[in-house]
C-alpha cells in the first residue's frame, strides 16, 4: 500500500498533517503522538516579532464545535528558528511553517528569514479572523490575495501554500487569485467567523467578541469549499475543517484534497491524527486501493 502524496514537489509519507495553531510546534503533543508517523507538522503561525495575542477568554465551546480568538500569540521568528525548527528536525516528518503578519512587509520579512532554514514548505496565513490588521484582510479580496501571494513568492525559497478563509462570497474566485499570484498549493478552510453570547451574564463568551468557529460543525462547509476549489484550480489542496475520523478525512480527499489537516480534533483526542491515518489504511485495504493518490478527487 502506498500512502505517499506529493504537494508542489514535496513528498509526504502520508496525507496527515496538523492544522496550524492547534499543535504548537509539536513539542507538547509529542508526549502522545509519535511525530515520525505524521506526513507533516504545520506549526502555529509565526510573525517577525513576538505577538501577545488577545485577552482571555479565548475559547468557547459550541454545539459540535468551538470558537477561538487566541489572536496568533507567538514568540516571533528568532525564537522559532532557534528553538522550534531544531526540535522538529529531530523527527522524520515534513515541516510546514505557518507565517503571519500585519503588513505585506512583515510577511515578507518572515519568509526571507526562513529562506535559509531547513523547512519544507511555507503556509501563509491570510485568513485569521482574530487579528485587527493583516490576517484575513489579505484573504477577503482577490486583488489583495493575489498581490500578497506574488510578494511572498518573490522571496520564498520553499513552496508556498496560501491558506484561504471561508469568510468570502466565492471561494473559487479566491483560489484563482492565489493561483494567479503564483501559489504552489492551497489550504482550506480556516475558521468561520462566529459569535457566542452568555445569556446569563449578558456578555460575549469571548473577550474579542468574535472568534473563529472550528470542529465538526463546519465540516460540510469545508468539504464543499474544497470541492469547489478543486474544480476551479490545478493546485494541490490541503483540506481541513472538523476532521475527527478517517471517514471525515476521506470526504476531503475524495472532494479533491491531496492532504488533510487535523486541528480541533487534537483537542478532542490528542491521538486523532494517528487514529485517522490507521482508519485510512483500513479503508484502503477494505476497498483494495493500492495508492492513496487514486482517491484524490475520486468522488463520482
Amino acid at each position, binding site marked *: 500500500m502506498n500512502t505517499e502524496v506529493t504537494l508542489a514537489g514535496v513528498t509526504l509519507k502520508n496525507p496527515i498533517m496538523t492544522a496550524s495553531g492547534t499543535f504548537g510546534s509539536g513539542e507538547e503533543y509529542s508526549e502522545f503522538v509519535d511525530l515520525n508517523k505524521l506526513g507533516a507538522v504545520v506549526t502555529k503561525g509565526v510573525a517577525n516579532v*513576538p505577538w501577545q495575542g488577545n485577552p*482571555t477568554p*479565548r475559547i468557547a*465551546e459550541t454545539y459540535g464545535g*468551538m470558537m*477561538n480568538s*487566541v489572536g496568533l*500569540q507567538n514568540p516571533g521568528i528568532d525564537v522559532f528558528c532557534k528553538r522550534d525548527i531544531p526540535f522538529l528536525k529531530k523527527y522524520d516528518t515534513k515541516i510546514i511553517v505557518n507565517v503571519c503578519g500585519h503588513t505585506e512587509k512583515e510577511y515578507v520579512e518572515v519568509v526571507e528569514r526562513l529562506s535559509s532554514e531547513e523547512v519544507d514548505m511555507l503556509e501563509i496565513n491570510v485568513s485569521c479572523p482574530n487579528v485587527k490588521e493583516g490576517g484575513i484582510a489579505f484573504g477577503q479580496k482577490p486583488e489583495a490575495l493575489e498581490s500578497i501571494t506574488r510578494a511572498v513568492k518573490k522571496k520564498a525559497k520553499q513552496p508556498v501554500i496560501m491558506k484561504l478563509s471561508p469568510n468570502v462570497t466565492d471561494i473559487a474566485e479566491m483560489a484563482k487569485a492565489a493561483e494567479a499570484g503564483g501559489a504552489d498549493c492551497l489550504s482550506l478552510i480556516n475558521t468561520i467567523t462566529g459569535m457566542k453570547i452568555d445569556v446569563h451574564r449578558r456578555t460575549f463568551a469571548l473577550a474579542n467578541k468574535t472568534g473563529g468557529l472550528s470542529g465538526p460543525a463546519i465540516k460540510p462547509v469545508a468539504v464543499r469549499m474544497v470541492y469547489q476549489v478543486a474544480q476551479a484550480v490545478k493546485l494541490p489542496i490541503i483540506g481541513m475543517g472538523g476532521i475527527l475520523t478517517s471517514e471525515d478525512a476521506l470526504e476531503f480527499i475524495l472532494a479533491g484534497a491531496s492532504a488533510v489537516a487535523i486541528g480541533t480534533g*487534537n483537542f478532542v483526542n*490528542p491521538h486523532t491524527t494517528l487514529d485517522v491515518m490507521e482508519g485510512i489504511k483500513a479503508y484502503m485495504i477494505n476497498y483494495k486501493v493500492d495508492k492513496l493518490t487514486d482517491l484524490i478527487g475520486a468522488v463520482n
Partner: protein
Amino acid sequence: MGKTRVAADVVFHEQIASDVYSLYLRVGDMAKEAVPGQFVAVYCNDKSRLLPRPISICEALPLKGQIRLVYRIVGDGTEEFSKLHAGSVVEVMGPLGNGYELLDKKAILIAGGIGIPPMLELAKRLSCEKEIVLGYRDEIFLRDEFSTFGRVTIASEDGKHGIKGNVIDAIKSAGVTGEAIYACGPTPMLKAVKAYGLSQGMITQISLEEKMACGIGACLACVCNSRDVDGHTHVKNKRICKEGPVFYAEEVEI
C-alpha cells in the same frame, strides 16, 4: 511516564451538596504521578461537546490506582458527568499542569467554593503544621474531611456557618497565622489572598483557572498575564494549563 489518557472506570460517585459531586475514577498509574494542585481533563461522552473539562484532583489514591474528583455542575459537561455511575467509563487525561510547591513552613491553606477540593490532597501531603481556612457561599461540603489535618476555620457569606464574611475576615478574626499560603478559589478571593499574603510577607501560592482547549500547553487559550516574560512565547503570558495552574502570587497579574 508523565501524562496519559485513559478510559477510566467510575468506581464510586455520590452527590455531596446540592450541585457538588464526588467521583472516584480508576486511572492506573496516573494516580501515582499526581501531585496536589494538578488537574485532569475529563472528556464528555456526548460527542457534541468536544473539549475536555479541566477538573482539579481532590485526592490521589496510588495504592488503589484511583483519583477522586470533586466538582460542581456549572454547565452541560459537568451536568453530563453528574449522571455517571459505578461501572460507567469516562476518558481522562492527566495529571496536568504544575501543582503546589510543598514548603516546610507553617502553612495556611485557603480555599473558597469549588477551589476547596484540591486542598484535601495538599493537606494530606504537607507534613508541617497547618491551618485550614475554607470559605463557602452557604452550603458546606468536605469540611469534616479536613479536620484530621489541622484547625479548620470556616467563613460563609451568610454567616450560617463559621464566621460571617470571606476567608480574609476569617483569618483575621480567628487569629490564623503562618508563613506560607496555599490558595485556590474564585478570582476575587485570590486577589484578596494575594494582597494579604504579600502584605504579610508570606510565601503565597495561588491556583488560577481559565477556559481551556488542549490542556497541555499547545493551543495558548488559557494564558494569564505574568510579571516576567514567559518561557514559551517570550511575552508576558504564562499558560495556566502548563506553567500553572499554581503560581507564586507575585508572578501573575490577577
